[in-house]
């Protein structure tokens, strides 16, 4: 239809350039380095493994989403007439298990981290490419176990597997579900180990710690949590399985065992795991904000250091999940204080992003919109986290929808928004094609609106006293639940549509130049999509990260 030659760098915003044939960049890229199934499933190329993860993780996102849809439909009426009590328990358990371990934890690190860390630090691959592939297979095997649990009747303990419910009373496939999570944990450990060694040992000449993109810093902090916390979960799940299979008694109160000990061990992993889920998202947002403002990130060292501080202090707060569980009130006071402390580094990030945007030349592109909604929702989720960290208020709202709303603001409003933001920002780099910007903008807004409509009413429900994990509720709360379910349907559509136009763009999108956004970073110096070995020759860096030209104002100091 047009005579634009496909082998030239076309204008990415020119929708008429369909780029139907392969570009030379694509022909030379990692995507075309081998066409057999074997070249994909036995690859050690971090970029291909990232795509394997992208497919697997997105699949589980939608499986978990279906469970969420069942929950929201059931909650439309106060009677709970879609699912039985047992069925409802199984729906929210699978929603939690799948979303936490098969989507949120691997989502950004294993896809974007895998793809981008070597590119950002100027390396050919991760430090242990075969371990990286092994991690994907472990993830898939864990996923198979989860799908088996799904078809074999599910599990009804909630994602937390609390004893003695999980060990003495629950019916479903507790052991199988614990096995699935146990297995996928090893995938997390391998990823963390690989990232740590890669970031230490494979930085290109001149890429000092102070020149690393903040995305890499936040993944470094995430990796530390992955390797230090995940093994504790592994042994705890093994103890749960042993308790069910062989009658092991360390959590069994009848024998003098202590169910609270289970909660200590579980939350020693699972609270830091919250930061595993959100730290990579914070890294993504730092990149998107700097790119949108086309300015260096304000207070680089504070943003980098806050990632490390979150990782460290995040290990000291787990007791705030146990305020009403029988924990000592003195321990509770200490955990309450430390939970307030951990908000400080998170707030540092938000202030610094805002300062970065100040007087920036902001382009209202989809990545910016996703980053902006992230900041808004993250602030809201974080501030309600402070509310929950207060001992006295937690007595009132513990285990209510207030908690549900709080962590969905962080996990869904935060991490999932960042996941979609990353997808929209790096998609042209990953596949060499751009997508229609207007659709990206609409989806970012739709996700933001749908999200708030879904979860804001849940704060009110929680404050009014609606407990989590119940599907029968007093009729006066129906209006809030209907609002929430309406928002969830908008959110569902807004999560599906990006995959339609992104996949469409793979064939019909205009070819992307190496640096479609005009931003800094080593990943934008290579062709889109990158060649198999990433860099034709090892780059040498002699400039800081976010090396945008500074525009001095009239009268500013030189």
């Amino acid at each position, binding site marked *: 239809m047009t005579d634009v030659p496909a082998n030239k760098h076309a204008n990415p915003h020119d929708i008429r350039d369909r780029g139907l044939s392969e570009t030379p960049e694509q022909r030379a890229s990692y995507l075309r380095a081998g066409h057999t199934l074997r070249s994909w499933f036995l690859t050690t190329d971090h970029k291909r493994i990232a795509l394997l993860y992208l497919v697997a993780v997105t699949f589980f996102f939608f499986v978990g989403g279906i469970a969420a849809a069942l929950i929201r439909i059931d909650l439309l009426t106060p009677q709970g007439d879609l699912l039985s009590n047992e069925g409802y328990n199984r729906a929210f358990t699978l929603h939690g298990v799948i979303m936490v371990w098969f989507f949120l934890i691997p989502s950004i690190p294993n896809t974007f981290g895998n793809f981008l860390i070597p590119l950002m630090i100027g390396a050919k691959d991760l430090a242990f490419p075969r371990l990286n592939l092994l991690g994907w297979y472990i993830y898939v095997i864990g996923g198979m176990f989860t799908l088996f649990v799904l078809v074999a009747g599910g599990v009804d303990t909630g994602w937390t597997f609390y004893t003695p419910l999980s060990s003495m009373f629950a019916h479903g496939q507790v052991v199988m579900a614990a096995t699935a999570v146990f297995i996928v944990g090893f995938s997390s450990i391998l990823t963390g180990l690989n990232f740590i060694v890669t970031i230490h040992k494979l930085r290109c000449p001149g890429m000092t710690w102070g020149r690393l993109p903040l995305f890499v810093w936040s993944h470094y902090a995430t990796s530390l949590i992955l390797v230090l916390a995940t093994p504790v979960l592994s042994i705890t799940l093994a103890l749960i399985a042993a308790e069910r299979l062989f009658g092991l008694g360390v959590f069994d109160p009848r024998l003098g065992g202590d169910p609270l000990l289970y909660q200590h061990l579980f939350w020693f992993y699972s609270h830091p795991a919250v930061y595993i889920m959100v730290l990579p998202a914070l890294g993504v947002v730092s990149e998107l904000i700097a790119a949108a403002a086309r300015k260096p990130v304000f207070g680089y060292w504070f943003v980098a250091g806050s990632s490390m501080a979150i990782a460290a202090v995040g290990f000291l707060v787990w*007791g705030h999940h146990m305020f009403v569980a*029988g924990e000592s*009130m003195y*321990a509770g006071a*200490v955990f309450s204080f430390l939970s307030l402390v951990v908000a400080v580094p998170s707030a540092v990030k938000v202030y610094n992003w805002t300062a970065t945007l100040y007087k920036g030349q902001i382009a209202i592109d989809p990545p910016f919109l996703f980053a902006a909604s992230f900041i808004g929702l993250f602030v809201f989720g974080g501030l309600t986290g402070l509310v929950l960290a207060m001992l006295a208020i937690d007595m009132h709202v513990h285990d209510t929808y207030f908690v549900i709303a709080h962590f969905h603001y962080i996990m869904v409003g935060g991490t999932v928004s960042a996941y979609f933001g990353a997808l929209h920002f790096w998609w042209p780099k990953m596949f060499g094609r751009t997508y229609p910007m207007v659709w990206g903008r609409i989806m970012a807004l739709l996700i933001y609106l749908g999200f708030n409509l879904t979860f804001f009413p849940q704060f009110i429900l929680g404050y009014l006293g609606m407990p989590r994990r119940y599907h029968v509720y007093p009729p006066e709360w129906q209006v809030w639940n209907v609002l929430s379910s309406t928002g969830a349907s908008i959110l569902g559509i807004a999560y599906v549509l990006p995959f339609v136009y992104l996949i469409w763009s793979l064939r019909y999108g205009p070819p992307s130049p190496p640096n479609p956004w005009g931003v800094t970073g080593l990943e934008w110096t290579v062709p889109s999509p990158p060649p198999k070995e990433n860099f034709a020759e090892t780059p040498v860096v002699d400039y800081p990260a976010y090396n945008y030209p500074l525009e001095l104002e009239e009268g500013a100091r030189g």
Partner: protein
Amino acid sequence: MEQARKRLAIVWLALIALLALTVAGSFTVTGASSAIVSFGVAAAKVALIFWFFMQLRTEKGLIRVFAVGAIAWLLILLLFAAIDYATR
């Protein structure tokens, strides 16, 4: 060469001596001082293993930090759990 082998042999002897000490301690002291003896000796043994057998004495500082990092992190779990148990 020879000296290095001799050093490893001395470390081994020291480890066996520490083992004898901790077993002897288990028959003589009880209560809090028993815990101090048995865990003090265990810490000394592990320090010898890490420093000489695992060659931390010749590794860079960063590797040393990685080697003891997890032990330090484990103390967080033990410490806070102990606070809860001690004051519950």
